[in-house]
């Protein structure tokens, strides 16, 4: 039987990977991917705790919500990225300086 620690380990790996991608990469699409990874890590944590600690369906429902919100967020984020690319012809995150000053 797979233990809770294994799930948390996978979740931690996913979270750290996402965080690293978010901080290290300059590509906006990559940053969005990192965010997705972090959200998935959180969803995995919810499901794991739900299964092993509380033993009810609360965590499941919560993770379903996270998936839905992540999908919506990705759609909005990708739309912004496309518009950004149309204007700047790049998706380098340091070029997004319109709000400065």
């Amino acid at each position, binding site marked *: 039987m797979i233990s809770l620690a294994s799930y948390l380990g996978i979740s931690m790996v996913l979270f750290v990977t996402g965080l690293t991608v*978010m*901080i290290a990469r300059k590509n906006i699409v990559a*940053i969005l991917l990192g965010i997705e990874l972090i959200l998935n890590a959180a969803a995995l944590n919810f499901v794991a705790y739900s299964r092993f600690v509380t033993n009810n369906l609360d965590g499941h429902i919560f993770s379903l919500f996270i998936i839905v919100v992540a999908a919506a967020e990705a759609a909005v984020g990708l739309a912004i990225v496309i518009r950004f690319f149309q204007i700047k012809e790049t998706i380098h995150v*340091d070029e*997004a300086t319109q709000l400065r000053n």
Partner: protein
Amino acid sequence: MEYTIGSIAPIFLSPVIAFVINAFFGRKLPRSGDWLACLSVFISFIFSARIFSDFVFGQYATDFYIHKTFTWFDLSYGTTIWNVDMGIYLDNMAAVMLLMVSGVAFLIHVFSTWYMEHDAKHGKFFTFLPLFTSAMLGLVLSDNLFSLFIFWEIMGFCSYSLIGIYVEKEKAGDASIKAFMTTRVGDVFLLLGIVALWMTLGSVNYVDIYAAIAEGKFAGQTVLGVSLATFAGLCIFLGGMGKSAQFPLHVWLPDAMMGPTPGSALIHAATMVAAGVYLSLRMYPLMVLGDLTWFIAVIGAITAFMAATIALVQTDIKAVLAFSTISQLGYMMIGVGVGSYNAAFMHLITHAVFKACLFLSAGSVIHAVHEQEMPKMGGLRKYLPYTFVAMLFCTLAISGIPFFSGFVSKDRILGDALYYGFMAGQNPLLAIVPILGFAGAGLTAFYMFRMIFMTFFGENRAHKHVDHGHGHAAAHDDHGHGDIHHEHLDFRSNVPLLILTLFTLGFWYAGTMTGQSWGKVFGAKTEWFKVLVEAPKVEKFIGLPREPFTGVDSRVKTEFPKAHYEHQTGYAGPNPDEHKLHTAHVIGMWASIFIAFSGVFLAFAMYVKHWIKPWAETFSGITTLLKNRYYFDNFYVDIIIKKGLLGLNRGLAYIDMGIYDRYIVDGWAAVNRVLYKSSKWFDNVIIDAIGVDGTGVAVNLFNLVLRIVQSGKIQFYFIVLITVLASYIWTLNV
């Protein structure tokens, strides 16, 4: 007849409306709205005549009156009810007065439309004339001293405006200020008297005052150490002295002739000067209670005699009339003082009629010869026949010639004065009252006929071209060159004079040709004047209910009383012996007839036949004294004003500028300067340097730090976020 607001208010309101319209739209109206003024006063006259006929011929009793009130404002607090009432009080005296004021004023208005026709001040004149009339009518209608005071002051203002109507002349301006300030001296006392009554009685209503007198509410009340009745009565009489130009305060009236002549007629005859006597008559029970009648009689006697002597040497036709007005007002005050209530009021009425006529005639003369100095006139009776007739009749009336109105009224005053001075057991010093009165009567006959003889008889001393009737249009065109032309009967210039002349005949007032008990021309009812007008019997006023202003009158009317002249008694006298009184009247009548005729004869001898040299040449010292009017003006200006008031002024100026200004105002400025400096320091250092600039510096410092943090690199934010979260979680665990 019923009396409602609709039948009384128009008397007072219609001239007010004319005033308002003329004041604001007079320039746009044809003839500056003089027809409107005339019309409004005529409406007053119609309503007054209705009341008069109702009171006099409607067979009412002597003590019949109408009193209607409404609440002007309400000063009630808690359970104390204190309404300030206004209203109207109409008795026989007020009814006669209303008819006289509105009638004379109407004729003066009509005359003015002719007299002022080509005058630049036409519009202004016809603005103030109806206001003046309405103020006098309102004063007569007033039921309390307070509203009387309001109208009193409106009249003061109107007289100020009418006297000073030619503001571009310095003398006119000075005269108007003098009239205003001199009457103001009396007005202050009047207000003081009203306040004293208000404080102690809580009301200044005539009816309340009469009732308070009857109930003995005045007993034991004192103001400033004197009894209330004496204090209030004296103050009110001083107010009347100012308005009616009595002895020490008479100086304004001769100067008041600076105004247009019809204006003088209104001021000197019908309205303003009558107000003082009217007030004294209204407050007669108070004067009796305050034991002031001897004072009134003495002041009246001094005024009557003094003004008559001054009038002897005046050469200005209007100055003669002005001083004769003062003198006649003195007779009215004698009448009030000696308890001859009815005769004093009759003299007020008869004087108003003949003095208005005299002033209008003088206006007619001045209009014709463009001259006011009598030595430059003479022989005018050929050119101004109608004016001559009017003026002659009025002069006969004022001189006290039998069959004329002045004889009827003045003779009765003098008869009562004779009784008062010699037979009533008074202080023997009060014999001065009839002595001065009779002397003044002789002088009156003399100076009035002197005026007539100098103006209308003898040769024309004007040395002007006289146009004998042909080429009238040309004469009119040459008006300014001083041509005298024959006067024609004109509806506006002569007819008012002739109407007034008609009423200088004595029987209108007395019912008898002589004013005495023989020679009756009509029945007893024609003696309406002395029967219907009598001093208020105060005990009848106790506990009478008030009627609402808008309601219909419901008092019981009684039959015309069958009274007799012989029953005419003094109000205050201790049951005067009627036989003695009658004797006094008979002696007085013959004495005044003799004195009047000798005055006329003296004038005739001096100014027509030149048997005697005019005494201006014989007694030059006295003449100088009289020409300078006993130096009253000099006394007031040089001594009271220059020595007294200017010194006071300087003292006050020192207090104002030396003490108040220097120490208090400048001291306050110094305090303010220190406050200003400290607040400036506070502002500059604390608020500006530390507060405002300090904020900027602090923001700058924050800026330096935040600029590093706010790099705009999103991944840097992530690092910070994670670091903070991690360190937070780490802290929780530790």
